[in-house]
């Protein structure tokens, strides 16, 4: 606007200035009319913002998602919490209120918590997963040949249905299956069933989980990296910073919030692993996780009340860990400049 005033002939400039002032006046008036104005009618104009229909509109837009959210998330969660105080078997029309009995049972039966050791495998795997995803995200954020092709390859596993992945990897790990035949091409003969004992079974399953979820982490990281302005790299290069220094001082601090989000997702994910072990081993051979155990309590032993309590406890544990994590690593606003 200042540009035009400089170049344009006087008359135009004046009109322009007038119009700017008018607008200011109008806004001032709307704010409360603290400034005296020349050409305005008395009192603020009745804005369309004040009509009742207009005020209700955002809620109308929100109604559909809210209704869905409440019906399919909050109501079920609330009923789960209410079941957790009963001895319901899942079918019977009658149920008795048992107070905190189910919770007492969960905390007095150590074997119910032992399954969390299995989560350790998945937690270790998610460290690998984040590292791998970060590595590829950084590499592919630089100009490379076939970038998009590699992006697609890395993200692809995340798009496949978890059940399908379970079946595919069942054949993969079979005795004499894909993995064994590939290994035999390299002269490695393996006589050990991959899912045969708890340690190798859990490592194999955690490996499948890495394969599946690396793509998600990768996309998150890549998005964050690409939002870092390109001039920063140029400036760094001029100053003689290599790739590693660029990563260390520009990329890593730049995507810190996304990394901390990934860590939270990784922790809560490894505590509540379900699909892959459930499809592939059904929790046999020491691969049972907390969620599988909960499912079995509810649907094999008809202890819906106890299982609901277990689910509530898992929810609380995840909330607690998230809270601690946020305390330790506060979510600062990133400012690279």
């Amino acid at each position, binding site marked *: 606007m200042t540009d035009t005033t400089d170049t344009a002939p006087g008359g135009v400039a004046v009109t322009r200035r007038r119009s700017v002032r008018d607008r200011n006046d109008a806004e001032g008036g709307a704010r409360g009319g603290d400034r005296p104005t020349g050409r305005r009618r008395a009192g603020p104009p009745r804005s369309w913002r004040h009509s009742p229909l207009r005020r209700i509109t955002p809620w109308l837009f929100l109604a559909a998602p*809210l209704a869905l959210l*409440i019906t399919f998330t*909050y*109501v079920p969660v*609330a*009923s789960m919490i*209410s079941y957790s105080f009963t001895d319901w*078997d*899942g*079918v*019977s*029309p*009658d*149920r008795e209120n048992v107070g905190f009995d189910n919770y007492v049972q969960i905390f007095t039966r150590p074997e119910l918590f032992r399954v969390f050791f299995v989560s350790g495998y998945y937690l270790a795997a998610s460290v690998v997963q984040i590292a791998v995803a970060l590595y590829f995200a950084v590499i592919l954020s630089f100009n490379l040949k076939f970038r998009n092709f590699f992006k697609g390859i890395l993200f692809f596993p995340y798009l496949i249905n978890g059940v399908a992945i379970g079946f595919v990897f*069942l*054949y993969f*790990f*079979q*005795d004499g*299956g894909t993995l064994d035949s590939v290994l035999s091409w390299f002269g490695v003969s393996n006589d050990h*069933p991959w*899912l*045969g*004992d*708890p340690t190798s*079974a859990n490592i194999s399953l955690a490996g499948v989980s890495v394969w599946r979820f690396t793509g998600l982490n990768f996309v998150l990281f890549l998005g964050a990296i690409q939002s870092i302005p390109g001039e920063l790299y140029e400036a760094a290069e001029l100053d003689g910073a290599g790739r590693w220094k660029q990563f260390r001082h520009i990329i890593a601090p730049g995507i810190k919030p996304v990394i901390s989000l990934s860590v939270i997702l990784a922790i809560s994910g490894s505590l509540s692993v379900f699909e892959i072990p459930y499809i592939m*081993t*059904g*929790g*046999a*051979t*020491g691969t049972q996780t907390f969620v599988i155990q909960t499912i*079995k*309590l509810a*649907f*094999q*032993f*008809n*202890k819906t009340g106890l299982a609901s309590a277990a689910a509530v406890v898992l929810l609380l544990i995840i909330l607690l860990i998230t809270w601690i994590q946020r305390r330790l690593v506060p979510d600062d606003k990133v400012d690279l400049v």
Partner: protein
Amino acid sequence: MGNKKTTVLSGALLATATLVLSACGGGGGGATGEVAAPPADPKGVSGEIKVLTQRTDLVQKGVMKAYAAEFNKIYPKVKVSFDGITDYEGEVKIRMNAKAYGDVLLIPGAVAKNDYPKFFAPLGTTAELSSKYRFSDKAEVDGKVYGIAQFGTANGFVYNKALWKKAGITAWPTTPQEFLAGLKAIKDKTGATPYYTNFKDGWPLVQWTANNGSVGCDANAGNKLAGPVSPWKEGGELRAIDGLLYDIAKQGLSEKDPTTTNWETSKALLAEGRIATMMLGSWSITQMRGAAVDAGLRADDIGFMPFPVQKGGKFCAAVVSDYQQAVSVHSENKPAARAWVDWFTEKSGFSEKEGVVSAVKSAPMPATLKDFVDNDVTFFDRSEARTAAVNDIDDAAEIGLNKPDYRQKLIDTARGAAKGSVEDFFADLNKRWDEAAKTAGS
């Protein structure tokens, strides 16, 4: 301003949600007590009925439709539709919280026996039905019967006769030791897998439980579990059953990698002679013979042998009930539904076709059990009078007699994938069972 309002509003919504919640749930319970009597005049009965079944294969292949067409020849005005459900137990259990769970259904294992009158219409008194049908005591509450068994099965080992012969064994083993020696001979002489556990699919492991009763020739073996009886103590039937499975796995006579087994392939492998033996119900014989014919082999090569224990020089085979068919208490066409149950059990020819034991007492043993009949195996119906109490204890103890989990752990213990000795394993099961029996199932 926006923030405060949002909180108020969402608070209100949450409160409403909680209110709605406390109002719903547990929709069962309708007009109880009305007997679903068979219609007097087949031509007169009319209405639409929906039949829930777990045999999705039969629904998809149109076999069930063909049965319905046969049914319509006698009951022309009844319209029958089928609902095949893959995860029968899980899904029907949830459906039963509302009223729409079909007109005819199979009673899910999860329903407590005392709740039968709330969900199902009585089909008659015990006195009326027990003389006609097997296993009527399984669904009896206060002198009334709520379900009629679809069919019964005898359990035993399905085996490849040619393979066993090749290993030099022609007579049925009469003791667990002989049986194990037989499996070993197969392993050494033929190179086939002597026994296939179907560990991954799991449910075939459950079939072992059905031998309870066959070991001691005891029709009351099932009922005897209702109490703190340490079922896995030395000399107990379950100890003999699970002990044999343990020995098979321990001596390396089962498949090398149990964790990736596959039921569908196992049928062909048995027919082709790459697997020698599997523990299953007599219902499986037809399927195995089908697989043999598909593979271009002789159906006669598939044999069936009883559990390797004899009592007084004779083998025993307990005949145990499959799912029980019931009529929903909410059905609007109870006479038509009852007509279907009776017709399906007695006249459909389903049992003969599937090679299973008919629930009708007067019906002869199926052709699949010819070997048993010829060799003078003693058949008896295992009583189910106290099954409900046994199930209660089983659930409370979280063992799962009819679930694969504890046997998977047993096999893992045998092959060294789980820690501990088998004695400790059985002792732990006994302890859990006895403790649970003190609070549940009385």
